[in-house]
């Protein structure tokens, strides 16, 4: 086994993990706040990818720059979707939410297909393939930038959650929705905003996804399984857990793909999932307060 290859895979895994973390953290956030498993989250990622793609293809706006447009737009779309489709599912949310969010995903896929077509596309910036070498490891700039963007946005989200009144209301809602209501928190508003934030994070994740992969409106199917497994490993409602689980899972996957084979790497998600569910059912960061 080549040590350099292994190191390279680890670094790549770490960087890519940061990008996945961006997508998975939004999913964990909405689950925590609303107990809604948003299987349509990856469709929002793809929608974000298309927005960045169209802005790049037609207006030549760099995908990192266009985030100042796509993230706010997706924030509003996310809030709108939540208010239109999820807010009314008061009782038995968890069961119905999968159906409703699945329907939302199909809707998003349909709209994207109508406007953007179903051909595979990719956001190909002129720096797409540039890389630099450090200690024998070849690092593609986009991966590094993506990771840094992920880390930055996660840091901002953490600040928002820790330091603002909204952050307190959100965390209280995650811990105990009814108790939050009873101290005067408007949990409906918190839910809508949280969904908006998750959609904005998805937009950022989508821009990166669209630079690293070819995609079409149906690509959300490929993505959602991975994201769901990541949030299970991260303990479902923990944003930090989702981010760290992304790093671990993707690194594990990249390493497996060089030491065994890429086919095995695809299985690695499920292997990790099985191991964690057996050893520690609450995930890496699951809080064990919900058993009562």
């Amino acid at each position, binding site marked *: 086994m080549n040590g350099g290859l292994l190191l390279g895979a680890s670094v790549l895994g770490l960087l890519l993990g940061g990008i996945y973390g961006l997508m998975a953290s939004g999913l964990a956030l909405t689950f925590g706040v609303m107990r809604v498993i948003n299987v349509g989250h990856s469709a929002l990622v793809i929608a974000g990818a298309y927005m960045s793609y169209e802005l790049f293809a037609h207006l030549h706006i760099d995908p990192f720059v266009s985030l100042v447009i796509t993230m706010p737009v997706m924030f509003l779309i996310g809030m709108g979707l939540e208010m239109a489709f999820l807010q009314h599912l008061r*009782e038995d949310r968890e069961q119905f939410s999968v159906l409703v969010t699945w329907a939302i995903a199909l809707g998003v896929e349909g709209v994207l297909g109508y406007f953007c077509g179903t051909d595979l596309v990719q956001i190909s910036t002129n720096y797409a393939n540039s890389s630099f070498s450090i200690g024998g490891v070849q690092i593609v700039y986009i991966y590094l930038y993506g990771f840094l963007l992920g880390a930055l946005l996660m840091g901002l989200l953490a600040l928002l959650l820790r330091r603002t009144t909204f952050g*307190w*209301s959100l*965390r*209280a809602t995650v*811990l*105990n929705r*009814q*108790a939050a*209501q*009873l*101290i*005067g*928190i*408007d949990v409906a508003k918190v839910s809508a905003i949280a969904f908006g934030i998750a959609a904005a994070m998805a937009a950022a994740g989508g821009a990166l996804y669209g630079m690293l992969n070819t995609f079409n409106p149906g690509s959300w199917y490929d993505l959602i399984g991975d994201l769901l497994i990541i949030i299970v490993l991260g303990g479902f409602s923990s944003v930090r857990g989702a981010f760290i689980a992304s790093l671990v899972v993707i690194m594990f996957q990249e390493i497996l793909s060089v030491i065994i084979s890429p086919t095995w790497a695809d299985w690695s998600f499920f292997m990790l999932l099985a191991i964690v569910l057996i050893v520690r059912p609450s995930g890496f960061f699951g*809080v064990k*307060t919900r058993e*009562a």
Partner: protein
Amino acid sequence: MTAILEIDNAFAGYGGGNILRGLTLNVEAGKLTCLVGPNGAGKSTVLKVVSGLLHPRKGEVRFQGQSIGKMSPRAILMQGIVQVPQDRSLFSTMTVRENVLLGGFTLSHHAEKEQRLEEVMTRFPIVRERAKDTAGSLSGGQQKLVEFARAMMLDPKLLLVDEPSMGLEPRVRRLVFDTLQELRAEGRTILLVEQNARSGLEIADVGVVLERGQVRLKGSGADILADPSVGAIYMGTSGRLKTRVQDAPAPTGNDVIESAPDGAS
């Protein structure tokens, strides 16, 4: 007698049917009213209708003469009604201090919050003692006291308390009832739901028996306690009515009201 809270012919439920079926109930200012009744009678539902977690489908809920039936929980809170719910409701990974401060979430001024916190900590020393511990690390009884403390942040005009003794061992339970009694002595208006009917009615000015979403009996706490039909309810002699087994205390022989029909015997 002035009724601070009036529930008038209220119907409410979840999904299909109604749980409250024409409930009429007044709560008088400055008194402790204890609501008892079998499992599933709708006791918690009454409190939810008052605190706005559930809106009545029909009928009126008035607080200090003002209709609150359609208000949001937040708006009702701002009217001065605070609920301590049946389940454990502290934010388990936050500290005790943070939890209590969150009780003043609707207060706009930081200084006001801090001042209330000081008052509450004087009233509930445990908040000061365990201020930095996470709420989840406290025992069940301690958590209940912190929940009371959190509810006191807004200096409520009406305190709704749902089965505070549930799941607590007898000694701790005593502490919880003592605390309620003290709050009552301070002149607070309290609507208490209690499965341990004896303990609840003993400290109550007014006792109310709820059955299938309607008030079946109302009187002084002592009268209700002495009413043979109340004993019947808790003895389970009328087949459909049963108390919850896990909440039934160990039989003490003379404790007629609290012994479960199919309990530990």
